[in-house]
C-alpha cells in the first residue's frame, strides 16, 4: 500500500512538473509577413469611385475570403481594408452619401477612409497595391 502511494505520488509529481514546463515555456511567435494576394486584372479596376473585391487565399489550410475596397478618387488610387477599426465589423460602401458605413455601431468613413462619425478611433487601414503583368495584387499581413 505504501509502495503504491509512493509510485502514485512520484508519477503525479513528474506529470505536474512536465505540464508546468510545457505551460511556462514560451511559444515562438512567427513574425507576420506581407503576402501579395491576387485581386483582379488591371482593366477591372475602377476608373473613378469605389469597387469592392473578395480576396481568396488559404490560411493554415483553410480557404479564407477577405473583402477589400479599391478606391480611385480621380487623382490617386489606393486600397482600403473593409475591417472597421472600432470592433472589427465589415464596412460597406454607401454610394448615395459617398461614405463607408459600418452596420454595427454606426461608424462612418469618407472615401479616403478617414472617420467622419461614430465610435471608430482610427481611419480604415490602407493596404499596399502591386500591379504586375496587368494583374493587381493586394498586400496582406499574414
Amino acid at each position, binding site marked *: 500500500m505504501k509502495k503504491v502511494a*509512493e509510485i502514485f*505520488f*512520484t508519477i503525479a*509529481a513528474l506529470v*505536474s512538473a512536465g*505540464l*508546468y514546463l*510545457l*505551460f*511556462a*515555456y514560451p*511559444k515562438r511567435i512567427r513574425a507576420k509577413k506581407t503576402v501579395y494576394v491576387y485581386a483582379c486584372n488591371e482593366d477591372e479596376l475602377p476608373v473613378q469611385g469605389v469597387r469592392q473585391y473578395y480576396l481568396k487565399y488559404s490560411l493554415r489550410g483553410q480557404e479564407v475570403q477577405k473583402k477589400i475596397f479599391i478606391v480611385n478618387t480621380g487623382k490617386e488610387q489606393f486600397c482600403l481594408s473593409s475591417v472597421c477599426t472600432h470592433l472589427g465589423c465589415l464596412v460597406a460602401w454607401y454610394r448615395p452619401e459617398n461614405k463607408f458605413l459600418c452596420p454595427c455601431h454606426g461608424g462612418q468613413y469618407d472615401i479616403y477612409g478617414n472617420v467622419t462619425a461614430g465610435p471608430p478611433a482610427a481611419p480604415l487601414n490602407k493596404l499596399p497595391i502591386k500591379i504586375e503583368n496587368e494583374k493587381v495584387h493586394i498586400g496582406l499581413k499574414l
Partner: protein
Amino acid sequence: MGYLFDWLDRNFGIKKPHRRFLYRPIPEGVNYFFCLGGIAFTLFIMLFASGLMLAIYYIPSESEAFASIVRIDNEVRFGWFIRSFHKWSANLFIVAIMLHTIRVLIYKAYRHPRQLNWIAGASTFIVAFASGFTGYLLPWDQKAYWATEVGTSMAQTVPLLGPYLCFFLRGGEDVTGATLIRFYAVHVIYLPLIMCFLLWAHFHLVKRQGIKGGL
C-alpha cells in the same frame, strides 16, 4: 521519492516536529465524511499551483486583460486546461468547504473547546468567497463586468457606510480598470496570504485539540 524524502528528513529533520500531527491517534466513529476538509485543502493547493501558472500569462490591465485570457485559452500550451482547472477547482473548493461545514455542524465539532477553530474555519469560508468574487472579474468580459457591477453595488445597501464602501471596493465611482487592478491584487496577493495564515491556524488547532470523534 521515498528515498529522497528519507534523505531530506535525515538531514533536515522535518518529520520529528510534526510527529504529533502525523501520528496522532484518531478517535472512534470517524468515517469518510471526515475527508471533506482534506479535500478542500487539496483543492486549495491545486488552486494555488494553477493560479501561479496563470499569473505568468495574465495581464491585469483594462485593455489587455481579456486579450490575455483569449491568448491563454488559444495559444498557450495547455492554457485552456490550466484555466479550466483553476475555474473548476474554485467551484469545487466552495462546495467542499460547504460540505465540510455541514459535517462539522452535524457532528457538533464546533462546540467547546473548538470555538476558535470554528471561527478560523468560518473566516476561511469568507476568504474563499471573496477570492471567488474577485477572481470572477479578472476575465474582464461582459459577465465579469456586470457581476462585479451588481456585486459591488450591493455594498451600497450597508447603512451609513454603504456608498463609501462601494467607492472603496470599486476604486472609483464605476467599475473601471482601477477596479480590475484592485481585484487582481486582492485575488493574487492579499487573499492567498490571509488564507495561508487562516489554514495554518486551522490546522494548528486541529493538531492541538485532536479530532472530535463520531456522534
